[in-house]
């Protein structure tokens, strides 16, 4: 099997597995909507206030919704031994791990992007900021998955992985949150947004090149 075929096989397998467990697929979406609903309930429904804080709320909710299913990326495969087989295969572990991350993003990140316009509508986000919101989510959520995968790979063999994972990942997510929410904020205020978008894209490229290696190394450590 060539490397490209192996990548596609891994991608297809993970997507099929995710689609067959529809309940799990919906969880991050419901969580995303629920977190975004909490803020107006806590802060009051004034449209002016909501309009001002909508970019931040949507991004915090998207970040938490990305964190929620993160642990599922490697844990089921670790528990049934598939992960060990993956590392034993002749293909580089980093490429196979990247396939798993892409599959995870397609099944958890993309639905959040699709739901985001609805949440933006709820929170009175100005219409002209919507394309920027979608662009930052399209660049930012794969970044969250890539960075998150390193943390998951480090903690997959631990029983109490969940809270530890959040503690490890939240500080590393700070730049994504700042640039993405900042870009939407600027768009809502009518300022140019090219700068933060380019920075997000640059961080995504950096993570795409470096993260798979760190993920593969971490998986090897966890399985040793």
């Amino acid at each position, binding site marked *: 099997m060539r490397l490209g075929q192996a990548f596609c096989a891994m991608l297809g397998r993970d997507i099929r597995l995710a689609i067959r467990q529809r309940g799990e697929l919906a969880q991050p979406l419901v969580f995303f909507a629920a977190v975004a609903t909490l803020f107006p309930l806590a802060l009051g429904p004034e449209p002016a206030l909501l309009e001002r804080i909508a970019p931040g709320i949507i991004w915090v909710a998207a970040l938490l919704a990305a964190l929620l299913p993160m642990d599922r990326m490697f844990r089921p495969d670790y528990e049934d031994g598939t992960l060990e087989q993956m590392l034993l295969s002749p293909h580089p572990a980093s490429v196979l791990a990247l396939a798993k991350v892409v599959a995870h993003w397609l099944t958890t990140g993309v639905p959040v992007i699709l739901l985001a316009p609805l949440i933006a509508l709820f929170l009175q986000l100005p219409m002209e900021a919507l394309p920027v919101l979608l662009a930052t989510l399209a660049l930012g959520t794969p970044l969250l998955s890539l960075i998150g995968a*390193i943390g998951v790979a480090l903690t997959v063999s631990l029983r109490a992985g969940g809270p530890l994972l959040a503690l490890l990942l939240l500080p590393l997510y700070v730049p994504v949150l700042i640039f993405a929410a900042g870009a939407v904020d600027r768009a809502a205020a009518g300022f140019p947004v090219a700068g933060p978008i380019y920075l997000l894209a640059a961080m995504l490229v950096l993570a795409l090149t470096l993260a798979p290696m760190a993920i593969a*190394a*971490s998986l090897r450590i966890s399985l040793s």
Partner: protein
Amino acid sequence: MNLVWFHKLGSPKYFHALALRLTPWLGALSFALLATGLYWGLVIAPPDYQQGESYRIIFVHVPSAWMSMFTWMFMAVCGLLVLVWRMKVAASLMRAAAPLGASFTFLALVTGSLWGKPMWGAYWVWDARLTSELILLFLYLGFIALQSAIEQREAAGRAGAVLALVGVINIPIIHYSVEWWNTLHQGATVTKFDSPSMPVEMLLPLLVSAAGFMTYFATVVLKRARCDILEAEAASGWVREWATRTATEPRNP
């Protein structure tokens, strides 16, 4: 290039003996430097023309902020040694440094906010440097939590090494993103001290104090790493031999 000393450092037995010999000297040096630097800074150095006496906290604040960043760099270098050469000693040093780094970060945050009360009128301002220092504290706490969660010593060392290296790539990104965020939201409120334009009477005690912090770090890291090595190698012959020898002798540091 002669690399024998490097290979020797990789041997836990040799490192243990070296650390045992160096620690008292480094400890004495650190005590002398800290006492000199703090007395010089807190008593002798002239008061600032604008901030009066309250600026004196920089003789603790600035060295601890420097050390908080230096410690992570140190951990990342150790992490590289762990991943590339599988040096057990480097893993012990890295593990030993993490709580120290967290303490330096915490000290920098506390002294920063104590200084902020008279200067900014509030204990906490979302100043870019304070904020990135706070995120650094979270990184340290995450590292310590990961170390305590993994039971096998070697796996913990290598997992920590990966985290230290991921952090070293991320810390500059975090730092600049926070700076960018701060300028976006509120603009520059306070310009901090310009180190180069600092008068010599203030700069010298600051450097002495920083050297004191650095030697304190070296002392404690060596001591902690030595204990870690003794724990890890408890079953090996040389540890038993050393332990029985020190136990039978009446007084041995």
